[in-house]
């Protein structure tokens, strides 16, 4: 099953690649339409839009998913129900492809809802309590976005069809478009885990590692960014885009800080994904959709690679994910640590790896165009924080001493996993330059003073020095930690957002529903129907029983009384 789906997806990737090159050469885009139902002048159509952006994204998605399925052949070979996982992953890829190729809101809803549900099934795949809670959080956060898209479907009915791409240039200043843009931005924020909704992404690390590599690095979380890239012409002058800018740079900053306090390997990688998502959303909301798309693609490559390396390490450490137990692994697993290093350095933006092209371009565009001081500071600070936690991770995992046990088996020769990682390594090295040639039809001119241009390097060097120092220093020992306990817990626990999404919400609603149930359904509704009428009738019957069972003459007299009343009312 694994090999079949790997070959199918790889073949699909090659087809997409050839079509992408053909389409981008000739500036072609193809639009298929199939009308399903037509009600009262609105038609529900299934449309497929194939232009270079969707073909390129489909190529990347199918490449990563084929490599991940091949990887999970070896990673999850002790799983009895592996076929179930592979089928779920294939359905996930299908939903993602449906989302990518659709210019029509109904088919986007099909893909979007499908993504949310299938990622729920994937996250709860291991049946323990942590996966259960994480799955619920994931599904309900994604559901908010689904509901928003349902409402957008309803509002865009005002324009006569659900093909949103036709309406952007004409309807920009409408009230309806204002509402639609607000809801689309919230939907994209829930899917891409921006600030109010960002607690599901670290929690979703309870999923199996190949699933995390596919879902949480490159496909599910970028669906929101992709939707906003498609909607970009609509949203560019709207007020909410500035709100999105604000929230996404705060996300970038917050997750960078929280990753520095984390000790779980997958959580650090999840928070770094969150930071890069904030970066993508912020450069999108500054008005550069193609750079956001570029960063989306290169990030997918090296993040999937990073997750896969983390998977190998977790396997070797006997399923322990805590980085305090790891160390010195570069001596034992050279090939895996090669992949880990290259993906980490690509994440930092080290020159001429793939991450450099996208990240450096983003930072230069931010410096060149005149934006806010806060935007500038937070961008550079977050870049420095990225380097900081990356180097801290490298120090903990690869350079310090090995902390696990005396007897170990650090085994690198699993060639199935290694081959899949090498494919991504190759792409992670080359895709940066490759994409930067293709995607930018009109090159960006950037003219910066010398020190501003080197600011990235200054910040990176500062971050790396801090990273090395912090992993050696003892500030995590107890006596120093308690001095800044409040600040540390605020920064470490992701600014208390998981509490907002879990304890804060669930207790209020469950309490309220209990109150509703007890007071209305088993209270007043019963009194005014069912039980109340029963009690009234019973009491009246008791009264009449007493009345009738006592004196027969009084009972007979009541008949005469009735006759007199009827006589008075009807004949006078």
């Amino acid at each position: 099953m694994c090999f079949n789906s790997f070959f199918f997806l790889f073949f699909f990737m090659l087809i997409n690649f050839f079509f992408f090159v053909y389409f981008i050469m000739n500036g072609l885009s193809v639009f298929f339409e199939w009308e399903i139902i037509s009600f009262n002048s609105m038609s529900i159509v299934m449309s497929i839009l194939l232009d270079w952006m969707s073909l390129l994204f489909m190529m990347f998605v199918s490449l990563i998913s084929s490599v991940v399925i091949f990887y999970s052949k070896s990673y999850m070979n002790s799983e009895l129900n592996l076929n179930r996982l592979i089928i779920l992953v294939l359905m996930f890829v299908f939903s993602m492809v449906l989302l990518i190729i659709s210019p029509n809101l109904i088919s986007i809803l099909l893909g979007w809802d499908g993504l949310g549900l299938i990622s729920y099934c994937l996250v709860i795949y291991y049946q323990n309590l942590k996966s259960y809670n994480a799955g619920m959080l994931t599904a309900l956060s994604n559901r908010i976005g689904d509901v928003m898209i349902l409402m957008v479907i309803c509002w865009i009915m005002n324009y006569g069809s659900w093909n949103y791409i036709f309406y952007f240039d004409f309807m920009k200043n409408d009230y309806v478009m204002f509402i639609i843009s607000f809801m689309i931005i919230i939907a994209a924020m829930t899917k891409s885990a921006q600030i109010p909704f960002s607690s599901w992404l670290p929690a979703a690390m309870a999923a199996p590692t190949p699933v995390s590599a596919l879902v949480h690095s490159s496909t599910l979380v970028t669906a929101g960014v992709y939707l906003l890239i498609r909607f970009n012409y609509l949203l560019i002058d709207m007020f909410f885009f500035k709100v999105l800018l604000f929230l996404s740079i705060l996300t970038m900053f917050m997750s960078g800080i929280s990753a520095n306090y984390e000790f779980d390997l997958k959580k650090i990688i999840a928070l770094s994904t969150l930071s890069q998502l904030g970066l993508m959303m912020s450069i999108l909301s500054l008005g550069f959709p193609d750079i956001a798309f570029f960063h989306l693609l290169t990030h997918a490559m090296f993040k999937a690679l990073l997750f896969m390396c983390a998977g190998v390490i977790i396997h070797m450490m006997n399923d322990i994910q805590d980085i305090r137990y790891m160390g010195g692994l570069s001596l034992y697993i050279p090939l895996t640590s090669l992949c880990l290093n290259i993906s980490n350095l690509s994440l930092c933006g080290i020159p001429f790896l793939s991450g450099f092209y996208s990240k450096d371009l983003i930072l230069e565009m931010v410096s060149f165009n005149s934006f806010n001081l806060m935007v500038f500071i937070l961008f550079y600070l977050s870049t420095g924080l990225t380097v900081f936690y990356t180097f801290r991770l490298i120090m903990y995992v690869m350079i310090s001493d090995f902390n696990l046990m005396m007897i170990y088996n650090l085994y690198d020769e699993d060639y199935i996993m290694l081959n899949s990682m090498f494919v991504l390594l190759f792409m992670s090295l080359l895709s940066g330059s490759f994409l930067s040639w293709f995607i930018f039809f009109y090159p960006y001119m950037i003219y910066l003073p010398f020190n501003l241009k080197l600011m990235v390097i200054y910040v990176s060097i500062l971050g790396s020095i801090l990273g090395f120092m912090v992993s050696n220093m003892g500030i995590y020992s107890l006596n120093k930690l308690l001095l800044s306990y409040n600040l540390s817990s605020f920064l470490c626990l992701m600014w208390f957002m998981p509490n907002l999404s879990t304890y804060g919400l669930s207790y209020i609603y469950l309490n309220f529903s209990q109150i509703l149930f007890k007071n209305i359904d088993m209270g007043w509704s019963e009194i005014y129907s069912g039980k109340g009428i029963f009690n009234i009738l019973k009491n009246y019957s008791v009264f009449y029983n007493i009345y009738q069972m006592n004196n027969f003459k009084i009972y007979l007299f009541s008949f005469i009384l009735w006759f007199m009343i009827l006589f008075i009312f009807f004949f006078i």
Partner: protein
Amino acid sequence: MMKFLFMMIFMIPLCFMKNMFWLVQMMLFFMMFLFMNLNLNIMCFFNMSYMSYCDIISFGLILLSIWICSLMIMASESLFKLNFYFNFFLFNVIFLLIMLYLTFSVLNLLLFYFFFEASLIPTLLLIIGWGYQPERIQAGMYLLFYTLFGSLPLLMGIIYIFNDLNTMTIYFLKFFNMNMYLLYISMIFAFLVKMPMYFVHLWLPKAHVEAPVSGSMILAGIMLKLGGYGLLRVMIFLQEVNLKLNYIWIIISLVGGLFISMKCFCQVDMKSLIAYSSVAHMSMVIGGIMVMNYWGFIGSYILMISHGLCSSGMFCLANINYERLHSRSLYINSGMMNFMPSMSLWWFLLLSSNMAAPPSLNLLGEISLINSLVSWSNISMILLMMISFFSAGYSLYLYSYIQHGKYFQGLYSFYVWFISWVFIIIFALISFKYDNFKGWFYFYLILNKK
């Protein structure tokens, strides 16, 4: 049409013969396929005779009722195995099917009322006869008296219409316009109680929970839709009054739907949770019919059919768990994926259809209903957002509680054997979607001919 009536009447002696349980069920399947192949003229009524007719709404609902009755018999095979008065059970089911068939296919309003009430009797007998707990007596009382309380004014209304218009043929009613408030309330109150609307919904959790699986299936599948069918027929001549007063019913049902969705979270009984989710779906259906949009009618019809299939399926699944663990409580029914992984797939498919996930028919109905309700008023958007979100919440709550996690440590013995009929419901879910809906435009014309 008479042919189906006679086929059902002649199945009655078949119920009382020996070992005919599966034959009766096969006959019902056969009748379903025969009925599906009727020459369906979607534009108008067809197969008209003195008493009976069929149009697209009746066709869909009769099809649904035959389907669910045959699945009811299949689901209750434990009655056959344990030899627990299955003859009378089969007779009950066939009698109920005859009453339902006649309800949906008669042309006369008084006959419609007669069969509407008559379908309550076999349901009551099912609940009281084959139910499990002693609370079923109270459940039967609630079912009967709530419906009767609502439908006696309906009888008065029908007789008033006969006195005024000298006709009770449903086909002719669209030419008239009765503008009386009292007539309006008396006509629709019965259907609102049957639907059920929020404040008069108390019979539904009791009746669904106490009924055996067949009773629950037919209640969730068809009996609620009787109310919707009645509303769709009766709204034709009450349009003006409705446009003045519909905001009351829409607001009660939408806010009620929100409250009911929240109440689903604190249910401990599986069947009770599914029953409350039925009320939440039906609240949206009421809203859709009351706004008097074309999209509202279409959405409510689609949601009625898909909800009938989906809820009946979920009650079947709840019964599968009940037969094995003898408890409907969520605490005992957890971690079932370890024992019955294939059931996990069916639970997931049906629960995801319940929360209107694509590609189910519920999604189409909900999109249409959301469109029509938001076009009526912008503010209903907030209520609808919360109803959709909470429906996902409780569906996933039910799914994850039942399937995942640890199983209850007190399970002693357990037998697992696979019943292969639930997937037929799924095929029905998908196959109904591609019906020929182009004729809806003509239905609209007929509906609004003035």
